[in-house]
């Protein structure tokens, strides 16, 4: 009884938050899954059970095996719903964007931190400059970057293409985000611009977290400065790299504002999150929009849940 008096008020104080999160995070996720498994595929709400939305989001081969496993007798003659071609394009874009963005931001951020680590005059100024894009919305950033990466040909060229021409680097001219094959990688440039500074800050804190005695001890043993980094400093940075990968990866999976600001609703720049928006707002295909949202959640959970558990466990150990 005395114990309850001790911790009861605390639980009471937190309980509104628990309740709100239970309803609006977990509850709505459940509701969303229910919508994704419904036949609500037009403006008017309906709630019959239907898995067609998911079938359109998986390569048709998977859909067929799914039917086979569940033992549907009509599996053979069922007209297999073909995979949505826009979705396949989205997945390609998402993959290319993720690889370019995550690697780019990680490498740029870590390199900048490495350069700043050993004391640089004006470090504060450099840090402030690298980090400032974090304060700018993707929508505002998209306005400039769309102009910078304008692929208009010939005399109508603007942005980087024009700059390249003027600097005699005309061979670098390209179609940027409207490029057929590499467009999604060009879209990763503004995202790198926005987040490399953040990664730099993470790594810089990581570098500074390595005890100076450790570095000094290695130096006393006659290790060159590079070897000090390789064998003493870098191994200390693994948790930072893990955090950075998680942060960048989850931003990448749900990237939305930036794509809308630069490419609008065009298929050539479309990513899963943008498609979901189009499905809800223009096509009124709620089940399929919800199905995409569910897949985004699954993708992110695969990344996040082990990380969260790992973090809380290692926190407890300390």
């Amino acid at each position, binding site marked *: 009884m005395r114990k309850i008096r001790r911790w009861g008020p605390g639980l009471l104080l937190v309980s509104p938050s628990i309740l709100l999160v239970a309803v609006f995070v977990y509850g709505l996720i459940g509701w969303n899954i229910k919508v994704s498994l419904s036949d609500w595929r037009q403006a008017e709400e309906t709630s019959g059970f239907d898995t067609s939305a998911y079938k359109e989001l998986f390569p048709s081969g998977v859909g067929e095996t799914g039917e086979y496993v569940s033992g549907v007798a009509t599996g053979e003659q069922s007209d297999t719903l073909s995979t949505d071609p826009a979705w396949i394009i989205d997945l390609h874009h998402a993959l290319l964007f993720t690889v370019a963005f995550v690697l780019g931001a990680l490498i740029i951020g870590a390199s900048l931190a490495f350069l700043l680590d050993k004391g640089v005059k004006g470090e504060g100024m450099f840090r402030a400059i690298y980090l400032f894009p974090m304060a700018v919305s993707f929508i505002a950033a998209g306005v400039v970057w769309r*102009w910078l990466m304008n692929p208009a040909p010939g005399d109508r060229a603007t942005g980087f293409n024009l700059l390249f021409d003027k600097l005699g680097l005309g061979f670098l001219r390209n179609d940027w985000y409207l490029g057929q094959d590499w467009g999604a990688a060009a879209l990763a440039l503004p995202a790198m611009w926005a987040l490399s500074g953040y990664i730099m800050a993470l790594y810089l804190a990581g570098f500074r977290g390595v005890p100076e005695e450790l570095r000094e001890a290695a130096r006393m043993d006659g290790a060159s400065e590079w070897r000090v980094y390789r064998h003493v400093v870098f191994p200390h940075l693994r948790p930072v790299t893990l955090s950075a990968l998680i942060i960048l990866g989850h931003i990448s999976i749900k990237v939305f504002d930036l794509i809308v600001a630069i490419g609008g609703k065009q298929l050539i720049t479309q990513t899963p999150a943008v498609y979901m928006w189009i499905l809800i707002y223009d096509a009124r295909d709620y089940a399929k929009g919800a199905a995409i949202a569910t897949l985004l959640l699954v993708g992110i959970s695969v990344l996040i849940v082990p990380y969260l558990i790992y973090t809380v466990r290692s926190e407890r150990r300390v």
Partner: protein
Amino acid sequence: MTTVALDRTSRRRRRRRVSSRVLKYAALAFAAVVVLLPVYVLLVASFKGAGEADPSRAWALPESWSLDAWREAWNGEQYGLLPFLKNSLKLVIPATLISTVIGSLNGFVLSRWRFPGADLVFLFLLFGLFIPYQAVMIPLTQIFIDVDFPEGIPRLAFAHIVYGIPITTLIFRSYYATIPEDLIEAARMDRAGMLRTYWSVVLPISAPAFVVTAIWQFTSIWNDFLFAVFIVTDPGQWPVTVALNNTTGSLVTPYNVQMAAALIASLPTLIVYILLGRYFMRGLMAGALKG
């Protein structure tokens, strides 16, 4: 003989050190230039008059500096952002204050007035930090309609407060974990209750965490586009990001006005960043969990 040789190697080594330092500064400066390039473009374009729209001169400074684009983007008849800036303020100020207070109370309980299972509750809340909000968006808009929640900005503010609970709780919990347990124990010895302890012991030393959290919430709510575009259907209630996207998404908007509009929409968060950058940075670090 040997001294000469030594001298030469040390000179070579020094030269190498000097050149590597030059290289280092050159790389840092180049990165800074690249990061600031979009700002240059925004500024230069926004101060050009309507007559200077020739793209071939786009990188050049304006021939004559003009405020027309700024005026048009500020409160011009067609593209004026002013009403939407007001909407954003009406949204951001209450949402930031409320979610910061909630975060402080949660963070206090979950770190310094713990109950059995507090860590699990924290984990339960924390998951909400990482979910893609798309995964709740369809039911969320639906629930607002079902319960007849006041339309527009109140809905948006509610959403930001609820989905802000994980991050604000996280920042405060990490901060309060650094106050010495003795302080809390002393208050408990004095038979102070929870709220009294919070009010007289914890709150007075919470200012830095309040600043960090408020900046974080202010920036992310001001810059949000996803919630706004799904939740606010009435254009009169749009926050500035949606209005900006609407203005600049159309091909007919002159690009000097687009650039001025982008700058105007970014000014509040940029000013906060410039004035309180140190705290901004701390919020980012908290966002990285243990980073």
